[in-house]
């Protein structure tokens, strides 16, 4: 019999479902308040955490937040986990799971095995019982590699996506931002352009532009244009060069339908990449997620943002992505109100993604209508880099002039490497040395000058 009530400081709290316990045990976030699922007081939040800590993994397994029958995200999560590993741990409580993860006897190998037996709800649950340092320590134990043209996730290395967007997709302007980024060492994860105009012609043009530049300068990396997956697939069909295929994901079928995608479409995209993509692989996909997208799309089913985020990782892992990027703070104050909520979301997401076995990167971002600033963003960057993120974005001066938000800059990228003594990806570091941009892991005087490509 599942225990759904408890007494805290003399007050009796009762919850009606696993879903409610998960939501109310979440750290305070505005999106959960907007969805009317958040705890109504600090003590109620603690009561939910207590109930959650005593809940058995089996009870979570038996009560997915959205039923298997009506949601393909739930189905994929359940169909992909290892029954054998799950059976070994199903009698653990969430509190015991936390203790196991943080124990000094538990290392990378044990956590990788564990991850194959956990549903996304279990992973979300344990994160709700963890503090910032808990999340950093646990995240550090898990660093997963993937290979497209470069290898991402090796110890001692930190990669960046060069994000050279232009408000009007002007090719030459995009090219200059690529050059600037590369000269700072950003672009080893991917050269990834967000198109303003999501048409096949426009996407093909940007794919060809980035591909030809990479070929000309023999840069060990991959290109990507972050259009809708169906637009990329059509471009690929028409012969456009794609090394990495992009799509945003949500944690519910309804959320994915709002994005215009399904498991079937992603399967087709993946198969097309294996057949027609330009890259070595075997990891061809780049996914983006972020707490709050489902509630913004009325596709949350009364489930908290963090649990839905975890479910999007459970969905993502099916296609063995090269990069999974969690973008927090991109939506607005109605989902993450301020810097504190932003930093918390980044830490949770990095941990939850890794516990799904994913090669995680973080985009700690802020919009100008939320109560967060550059200081918050830089703290989020440092703390998640300490936690062992694989990559960040690289935006000129931190200001995305097309998407209108702030993300980590080329300067921040170079700084994170310097602060933590991290190097670019192996092949890319050699390229930087050959270009005279880096010596012994440090930028040379030539770095930061886009005109060296003249």
């Amino acid at each position: 019999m599942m225990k759904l009530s408890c007494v805290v400081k003399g007050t009796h709290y009762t919850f009606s479902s696993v879903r409610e316990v998960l939501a109310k045990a979440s750290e305070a976030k505005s999106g959960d308040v907007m969805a009317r699922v958040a705890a109504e007081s600090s003590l109620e939040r603690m009561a939910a955490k207590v109930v959650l800590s005593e809940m058995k993994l089996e009870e979570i397994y038996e009560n997915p937040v959205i039923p298997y029958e009506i949601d393909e995200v739930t189905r994929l999560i359940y169909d992909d986990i290892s029954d054998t590993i799950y059976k070994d741990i199903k009698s653990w409580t969430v509190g015991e799971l936390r203790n196991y993860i943080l124990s000094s006897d538990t290392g990378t190998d044990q956590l990788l095995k564990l991850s194959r037996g956990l549903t996304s709800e279990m992973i979300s649950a344990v994160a709700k019982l963890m503090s910032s340092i808990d999340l950093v320590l646990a995240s550090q134990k898990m660093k997963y590699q993937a290979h497209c043209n470069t290898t991402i996730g090796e110890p001692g290395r930190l990669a960046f996506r060069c994000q050279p967007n232009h408000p009007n997709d002007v090719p030459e302007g995009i090219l200059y931002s690529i050059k600037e980024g590369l000269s700072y060492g950003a672009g080893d994860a991917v050269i990834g352009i967000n198109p303003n105009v999501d048409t096949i012609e426009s996407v093909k043009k940007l794919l060809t532009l980035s591909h030809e530049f990479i070929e000309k300068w023999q840069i060990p990396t991959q290109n990507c244009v972050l259009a809708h997956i169906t637009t990329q697939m059509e471009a690929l069909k028409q012969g456009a060069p794609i090394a990495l295929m992009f799509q945003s994901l949500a944690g519910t079928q309804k959320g994915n339908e709002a994005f215009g995608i399904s498991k079937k479409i992603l399967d087709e995209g993946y198969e097309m990449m294996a057949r027609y993509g330009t890259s070595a692989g075997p990891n061809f996909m780049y996914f983006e997620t972020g707490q709050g997208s489902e509630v913004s799309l009325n596709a949350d089913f009364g489930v908290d943002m963090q649990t839905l985020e975890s479910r999007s990782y459970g969905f993502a892992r099916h296609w063995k992505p090269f990069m999974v990027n969690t973008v927090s703070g991109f939506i607005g104050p109605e989902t993450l109100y301020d810097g504190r909520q932003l930093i918390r979301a980044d830490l949770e997401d990095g941990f939850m993604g890794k516990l799904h076995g994913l090669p995680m990167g973080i985009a700690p971002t802020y919009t100008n209508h939320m109560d967060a600033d550059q200081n918050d963003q830089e703290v989020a960057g440092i703390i998640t880099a300490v936690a062992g993120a694989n990559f960040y974005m690289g935006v000129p001066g931190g200001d995305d002039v097309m998407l209108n938000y702030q993300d980590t800059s080329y300067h921040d990228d170079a700084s994170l490497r310097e602060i933590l003594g991290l190097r670019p990806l192996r092949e890319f570091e050699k390229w930087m040395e050959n270009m005279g941009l880096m010596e012994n892991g440090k930028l040379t005087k030539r770095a930061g000058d886009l005109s060296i490509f003249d």
Partner: protein
Amino acid sequence: MDFQEIVQRVVEEVKKNMNSLKTETDQNKEEIIYFPEERIEGVEKPHNAASIEWAQSITPARIGIGRTGTRMLTTSYLQFLIDHAAAQDAVLKDVSDDFLQHMDLHKLETKASDMKTYLMDLDAGRKLSDESIKYLEKSGDKGKNVQIIVCDGLSSSAVEANVVDLLPALIQGLKLKNISVAKPFFIKRGRVWVQDEVAALVNCDLVISLIGERPGLNTDESLSAYMIYRPTEKTVEADRTVISNIHKDGLTSVEAGAYLSDLIEQMLLAKCSGVTFAQQRS
């Protein structure tokens, strides 16, 4: 020293400081700081300075700004913070009544009765107020091909900067194609999805919202156009077609008017919008 004495001394000290401040301002009238707003060319000993200058002229991205160590130079860093401050302030401004009068746009409202509700509760900005529903039921221009809505969204500056040219260009473009256009109106504190309710009330084929985007550092004047063909209860986000970055350094408002009217003509012919429309087009 007793308390009275301390207060006395502090008061005298403050007076003295204020006096000296005053004289200083007077003397330094000619020395006001005009902080540069343009990106600096901060690269030390560039390989090709002309190329950096050219690069800065064709993209508003913060490139060619150089560095100290791995950090931004002081000027660039302060410029970034100033632009952030300006963008934060821009969110809180309203579209002026004079502007609406000049453009002959009737003002409707959503259920978001104040800015805080609007920012923190998406649903409030997605539904018309009861009074506005009544207005459309009674006075809406019904049964036309296209209904144009102007919304402040997250930037009133974007509306004021673009709609003056965009709205006439769009209406003219549509009329030349023999597409009937309902009388446009303005919705205060409106989100994109409010267009679904409007479409149902005025029974149009296609509804287009011209809505202020969240302000960026580069500009707070960026406008988006969201279009949907006959929205229903089952409508999802992917059913909308969006053209963003309408501003003087992106897609200009006059160009946008022509482009959008072409696009709308095609959508009306295809009887769909969003991803379905994009796939049909290819």
